[in-house]
């Protein structure tokens, strides 16, 4: 479980996050949603330590990450897997080397053992016979899958996904969402997904945190998101015609 306590972050005079608190449950797909520019990615970066919050604390299973020393932070980070918006695959390495990278750096595994683990993870995300391809030779959806394989290869306790289906067609988006959900349940990990895609929200949002202008204004699940009674959330949820017609009916 990850707990955040009064996280605030400003850039110069602009307050991006205003005292955000909440919990992300183990074995669940936790979503941070909101319109563009509401601070979702900044919050995610504060949680994983890529940005230091101005105030507040982040706890990974009761371990205070914000105030941890460098060694402790490094130790916690080794339990984290992260899927970045663009995949963030290393251009100079092929698919296999990309997925194997965390094992090369963080473990003492033998070459054969590492290769088996890599093949298992690639199979798990539905990729086969692409081991020797370079990131520039594969599609956006495949890059995301490779990113997921790299994120889970080291058996993380926490999985973070920053807009996992941005730039993907609807079918591939759903496949990626389902994959994230399956992996979360299968490995019983704490997954935090930042998204503004309503298909994801309705499909995998077991626990949802809605941000609006830097504030947390609602928390719940996809089952009660349509009846929140929060105007900002309704505006976000019922933007497209399909959702509007659903609401009207």
């Amino acid at each position: 479980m990850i707990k955040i306590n009064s996280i605030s972050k400003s850039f110069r005079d602009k307050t991006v996050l205003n005292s955000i608190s909440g919990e992300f449950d183990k074995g669940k797909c936790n979503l941070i949603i909101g319109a563009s520019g509401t601070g979702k990615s900044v919050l995610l970066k504060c949680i994983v330590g890529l940005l230091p919050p101005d105030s507040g604390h982040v706890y990974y299973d009761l371990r205070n990450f914000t105030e941890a020393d460098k060694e402790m932070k490094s130790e916690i980070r080794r339990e984290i897997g992260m899927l970045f918006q663009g995949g963030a695959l290393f251009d100079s390495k092929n698919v296999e080397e990309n997925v194997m990278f965390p094992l090369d750096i963080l473990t003492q595994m033998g070459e054969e053992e590492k290769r088996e683990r890599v093949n298992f993870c690639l199979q798990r995300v539905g990729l086969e016979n692409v081991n020797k391809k370079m990131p520039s030779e594969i599609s956006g959806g495949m890059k995301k899958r490779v990113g997921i394989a790299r994120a889970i290869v080291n058996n993380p306790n926490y999985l973070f996904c920053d807009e996992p289906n941005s730039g993907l067609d609807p079918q591939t988006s759903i496949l990626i969402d389902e994959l994230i959900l399956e992996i979360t349940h299968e490995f019983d990990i704490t997954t935090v997904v930042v998204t503004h895609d309503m298909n994801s929200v309705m499909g995998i949002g077991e626990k949802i945190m809605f941000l609006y202008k830097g504030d947390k204004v609602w928390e719940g699940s996809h089952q009660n998101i349509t009846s929140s009674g929060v105007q900002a959330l309704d505006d976000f949820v019922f933007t497209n015609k399909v959702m509007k017609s659903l609401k009207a009916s």
Partner: protein
Amino acid sequence: MLMKSFGRYILFLGSLFVRRETFMTYYKLVFEECVQIGVRSIFLFVLVSTFMGAVTTVQTAYNMVSPLIPRFVISQVVREMTILELAPTIMAIIFAGKVGSSMAGGLGTMRITEQIDALEVMGINSASYLVLPKIVASLLMYPLLVIVSGVCALLGGYLVGTLTGVLTPTEYVQGIRFGFQEFGVSFALIKSFVFAFLISSISSFKGYYTQGGALEVGISSTQAVTSSVIAVLLADYFLAELLLS
């Protein structure tokens, strides 16, 4: 502003030596960087230095109009210019243009495509992992490149000097050997170490802290070359004052 940048640069250098990975990790990375920085630069260095030596020979001969000056002085001048300035310093400017801009561009691209963030999230000190091997490889390869370009410049001068009849092979070799001081070579190597460090560290610094998009990566590469060249020229002057006066 300048002092702030300098302060960040010093902190950046300090960050290279904390939370390091295993020796074997760096060994592999340094080896890869040596190929990238050294082996892939040899052709350009050989080409430029050979022509530089040839042109220096022709131009020195052109300016030596007095019959009282022996012809071997031409190759002596070529030798001194090559060892003291052309091989270490002019090649440093080419090194900054080729290798420095590539380092800044590569790191800048890694930054804007979140590859550096990916390393940090894994608990890896990205600065140390990415930059330290580049600096070590530069320190290993640039002095070798300077030696290669020194030899090529002298060979270029020999070829052009003898083939065009500016001076005989015997005169050329005599000039190369006449009044030779070994310290000149040591001085060139000291300079090459300093320049290699400055170019690789400044270029990496510029690339590592790139913010924005593709345009900013280009700007970082340009800044890396400009800053590296200025640093090399300043260091060149101070080293000459320090070691030759």
